[in-house]
């Protein structure tokens, strides 16, 4: 059996108790996406300000368990200031960390340089608790909706 410490790392509890980038941004100009986990009732809204090159600000609001809330907090820290391509790369790395492929299906482990991950590495233990993976991915899947939307806009501008 996995110990609780594998799941509830200190960094996770810290981000749960002291959430970063919590709140909302004015829409528009911000982009907003909402996510729900029908299984447990968790809800999240992600707000992104994008200046055409980088994510200049990101906020999240909602309710959920410690894994869901801390994952949202860690994610906003990880992608703030990044380009869309860089944000996609971060999403990909996060999914690998949870042993998921890009579609979110279970996949074989891929080697990851944990040192480059920073605090995000704390979420690695979640992969050992299958019932909690949906908690950890909620914020990321919701953020992906905005990334997809921004990608479409970029494609449209290049046409």
């Amino acid at each position, binding site marked *: 059996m996995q110990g609780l410490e594998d799941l509830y790392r200190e960094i996770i509890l810290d981000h749960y108790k002291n959430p970063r980038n919590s709140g909302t941004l004015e829409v528009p100009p911000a982009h907003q996406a909402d996510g729900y986990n029908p299984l*447990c009732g*968790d809800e999240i809204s992600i707000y992104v300000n994008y200046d055409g090159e980088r994510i200049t600000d990101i906020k999240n609001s909602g309710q959920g*368990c*410690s894994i869901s809330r801390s994952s949202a907090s860690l994610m906003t820290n990880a992608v703030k200031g990044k380009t869309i391509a860089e944000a996609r790369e971060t999403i990909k790395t996060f999914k690998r960390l949870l042993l998921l492929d890009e579609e979110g299906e279970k996949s074989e482990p891929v080697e990851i340089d944990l040192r480059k991950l920073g605090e995000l590495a704390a979420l690695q233990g979640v992969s050992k608790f299958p019932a909690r993976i949906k*908690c950890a991915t909620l914020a990321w899947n919701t953020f992906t909706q905005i990334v997809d939307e921004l990608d479409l806009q970029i494609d449209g501008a290049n046409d």
Partner: protein
Amino acid sequence: MTEVLIDNHIDVAKVRSDFPIFANNPGLHYLDSGASSQRPSMVLEAMENYYRFHHANVHRGVYRLAEEATELYESARERIGRFIGATHPGRETIFSKNSTEALNLVANSLGRGFLRQGDKVVITKMEHHANIVPWQMLAQYIGIQVEFIDVDDEGELIIDDLERIVDGAKVVSLTLTSNVLGTVTPFTGIAQVAKAAGAIVVGDASQFVPHRQIDVKSIGADLIAFTGHKMFGPTGIGVLWGRSELLDQMPPFLGGGDMISDVRLDGFVANELPYKFEAGTPPIAEAIGLGAAVDYMNSIGMDAIESHDREISRLAYEKVKGAFGDEIKIFGPSDPSKRSGCLSFELEGVHPHDVAQVLDQNLVNVRAGHHCAKPLMRHLGVAATARASFHIYNDEADVDALVDALKETRNFFI
């Protein structure tokens, strides 16, 4: 099976020896019977015995095995019907997949045969989704109006104004016991007012039948749904009971084998009760398993099962409240005599999902989530609760394990 009563009280240790899950999971504190109970050996043996010695399709063949299978299936129906007090157990006891399917049968059949655009159907804010969504579907498809009996802060139905709410209603459908709050509703009183207003009365007894004696003749309902797997039976089997005069008038729900007496190119004639509502090869082994579960409950006695439920509901409320006071919010009636089966709570500062995770490390199994009752959760102002639910194999040691694990949870997170 062993003798399980001592002075009319359930001997939990002996009951547990009837349920192999406990021997196979040492130290388990299973507190999720509200989601699904465990099964005694005699249910498993009845199903295996059927498959090993008597399996054939029912109501079809003239050969010996087919007759044995039909006899076992119909005998289970009779026993289950008698268990709930049906006047005509063989005609009024309809097998379904679960309560959800039984309630969908009711809504669809009434929607086809009785309800028109603008008709009023009254339910309550504490219903399981299974008694909300089928009516909302009718609202979408034929334009019925769905109205709700409200719930107060104590988790009880507000019925001061009941006569006005049910006035003109064609159907009043409500739960006998809330799966979230454990509230036992004043079903019979509501049914009387609803009947006086001319409504068909439907009861969701999924959480009631596992713990309390039901007498469908006197409870005031026209239709009652419940499920097998919460009362020691297998999954995949539920029951719809109905007054035969009403069932006779209701059009069938699913079409196919067994539910017809004749089919021609230009139409069909529905079979008689109960087969009219049992399309396709039924869950034969599951019905036989549920028959054995009812035999098991009868062997213990519903009086003893009910008093055990009352005792453990009171004990759980008092011990958890006593240990945590204002640090815990317990949903539902504060009067333990109005509760049955479960304890829903929110530990201050810890999300229910995290509570359930730490409890699991202590082999205490509880449910965390919205319990398929989102309108009620919104009414309570929470996204989720943790719910400990009990049955005859639970005792004070399980409640103590719950309290200890909750203390550990609090220390871990706060």
